[in-house]
């Protein structure tokens, strides 16, 4: 399959923010990634009784949505609201809507479970006939679209609004959707990113798949035992980049997508789909693999995922390109992971460092023997020019982004 030719000129990050178990806003994440610290802690979420660690965001329950949108109240939209208040992001969206017109701002957000926690709780309160006894605002909370509906309503936006929900690639693929919509002149800018919040479905679901680690997850480490679930929100305001981007600008040069066509819950063993997505992103960016200075791996810390991605990266980039997974710091934030890690790549480009693989201290010998990788166990102070972020999901859905420093 030939990767598609570049359909559009580069976009730039006009504003961005991230909130995870590492804290609220960009500055706390920059510090944590530079220090290699982790926000994972033993699971004490709700009534969950599982021997695992999670990345829970502090203070989500205390967030109150603006009163006129009270029907949207659920953990996912509270986490979205908490994130929108950081780094001047809400003001940047309002300014963009005023500048371009509210119908020229798109909202493309990724989530996997949205506000399903509301429904999980309502199921515990059914009457003897099995009917709900609590007010459940399904459309505004549980439904997958709830997140984009909330963000659109909150800012009074009238452009196209949708949720991409393809498991763990969701909030990476929204960058590709925004890129196409801007290229088609349907909109001038787009709010992209994703939010996923803790719920029982994912914690007990990954437990059923026997993929939860009993300790903080350690992607690519010799002793890795599975993943840690996290929650997070990341937002980026994307707009067309000027012909001569400023030095501090961060650009989206390419987005590559593919499908595994292999299995619902395990990746293609050789990482074939992952490789296609990375190649398509490079082709759109007009770059050779050697131009990439750092890869933020999907790196979930399950042996089959790490092995498939490792093989794909080694076959395309060889053994020297620095790479790491930041899921040891945040946990796997599922549908928000692509957006979170795109913002981490933005921080790396803007501040001149490469995140280390938090949680890992000894690379799995399989990677040193069969598919050598330059996996960073510690953060590195160096200024990358081009970076890649990988996001691969259940159902074999893959997306890679190529970001660059302006100037």
């Amino acid at each position, binding site marked *: 399959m030939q990767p598609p030719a570049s359909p559009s000129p580069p976009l730039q990050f006009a504003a961005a923010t991230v909130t995870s178990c590492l804290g609220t806003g960009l500055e706390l994440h920059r510090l944590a990634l530079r220090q290699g610290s982790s926000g994972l802690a033993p699971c004490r979420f709700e009534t969950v009784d599982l021997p695992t660690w999670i990345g829970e965001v502090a203070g989500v329950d205390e967030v109150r949505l603006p009163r006129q949108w009270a029907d949207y109240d659920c953990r996912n939209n509270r986490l979205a609201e908490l994130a929108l208040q950081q780094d001047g992001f809400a003001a940047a969206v309002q300014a963009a809507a005023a500048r371009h017109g509210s119908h020229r701002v798109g909202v493309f957000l990724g989530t996997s479970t949205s506000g399903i926690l509301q429904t999980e709780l309502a199921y515990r309160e059914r009457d003897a006939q099995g009917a709900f006894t609590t007010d459940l605002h399904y459309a505004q909370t549980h439904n997958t679209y709830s997140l984009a509906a909330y963000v659109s309503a909150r800012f009074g936006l*009238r452009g196209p609004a949708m949720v991409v929900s393809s498991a763990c690639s969701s909030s990476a693929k929204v960058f590709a959707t925004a890129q196409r919509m801007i290229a088609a002149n349907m909109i001038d800018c787009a709010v992209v990113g994703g939010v996923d919040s803790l719920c029982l479905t994912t914690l007990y679901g990954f437990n059923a798949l026997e993929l939860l680690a009993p300790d903080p997850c350690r992607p690519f480490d010799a002793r890795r035992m599975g993943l840690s679930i996290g929650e997070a929100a990341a937002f980026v305001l994307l707009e067309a980049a000027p012909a001569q981007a400023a030095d501090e600008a961060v650009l989206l040069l390419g987005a590559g997508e593919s499908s595994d066509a292999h299995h619902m819950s395990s990746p293609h063993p050789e990482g074939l789909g992952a490789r296609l997505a990375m190649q*398509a992103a490079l082709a759109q960016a007009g770059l050779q693999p050697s131009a990439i200075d750092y890869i933020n791996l999907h790196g979930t810390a399950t042996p089959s995922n790490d092995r498939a991605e490792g093989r794909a990266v080694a076959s395309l980039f060889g053994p020297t390109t620095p790479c790491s997974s930041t899921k040891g710091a945040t946990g796997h934030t599922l549908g928000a992971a692509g957006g979170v890690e795109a913002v981490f790549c933005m921080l790396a480009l803007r501040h001149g460092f490469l995140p280390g693989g938090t949680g890992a201290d000894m690379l799995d010998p399989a990677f040193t023997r069969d598919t050598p990788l330059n996996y960073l166990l510690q953060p590195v102070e160096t200024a990358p020019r081009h970076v890649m972020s990988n996001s691969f999901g259940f159902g074999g859905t893959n997306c890679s982004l190529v970001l660059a420093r302006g100037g």
Partner: protein
Amino acid sequence: MTRLTASLDGIGLLGPGLQNWPQTRSILRGEAIYLSCRTQLPAPQTLPAAERRRATAAVKLTLATGLEAVAAAGMQAAHLATVFTSSGSDGLNCHEICAALACSDRMISPTRFHNSVHNAASGYWGIATGAMAPSTVLCALDASFGVGLLEALVQVAVLQQPVLLLAYDTGYPEPLHSVRPIPDSFGLALALTPKRSDRSLARLSIRAAAPFTDDPANTLTNADLDALRRSIPAARALPLLEALSRGESGTVVLDHLPGQGLAVTIDPS
């Protein structure tokens, strides 16, 4: 790019009392009577046996409609990019998970969990057809067909490549039905391509800079079909299909978000 345009080369359809596109076309033209009955979902023969056993209603629905559209268009499913759009993930599967999580042992099956993702139908489509092309999986509640059509037309126009759009919804059991009253399964698939050909049924287009309108959505003259349009989000496409069945040209307004219709122009080939 003032208009985003694609050639519609194949249609697949399955819904209550609607067995495929040719039969539905006859009903929409008024040549056959519409008799509503539960949607008949065929077993997905294209899936390997292990996956066939696990196939949910959404998987059966999208495989049936997608393969019908691809065959009519003379396309190869294995090479096609896809856009899947649905107003929610599998309601029955979700009910089973939430019910299990409300029990003391909270045991849920791995299969139920992997079928719970909104992109389950897309994943099974890839396994069944071998398609490694990109697949975009969308949700916009009752506007899900509209955003799927927007996204598909944008992909065809910007990337200049064929795209298969699959819009689908499945019924919700109680108690979810009380908050999301979708009664049954309805799915349609549209095979869209940049270039007009002998197979083209029509050209579809939307205004790039202003796809939405304040005008009210078109309705159907047949009251039963209009009730179907209102009750299942994927069936919001029916006014477009009615105009196509009659070979009409002009603009159809489809239900999108409240106060925001999607204006689609049809130009018969």
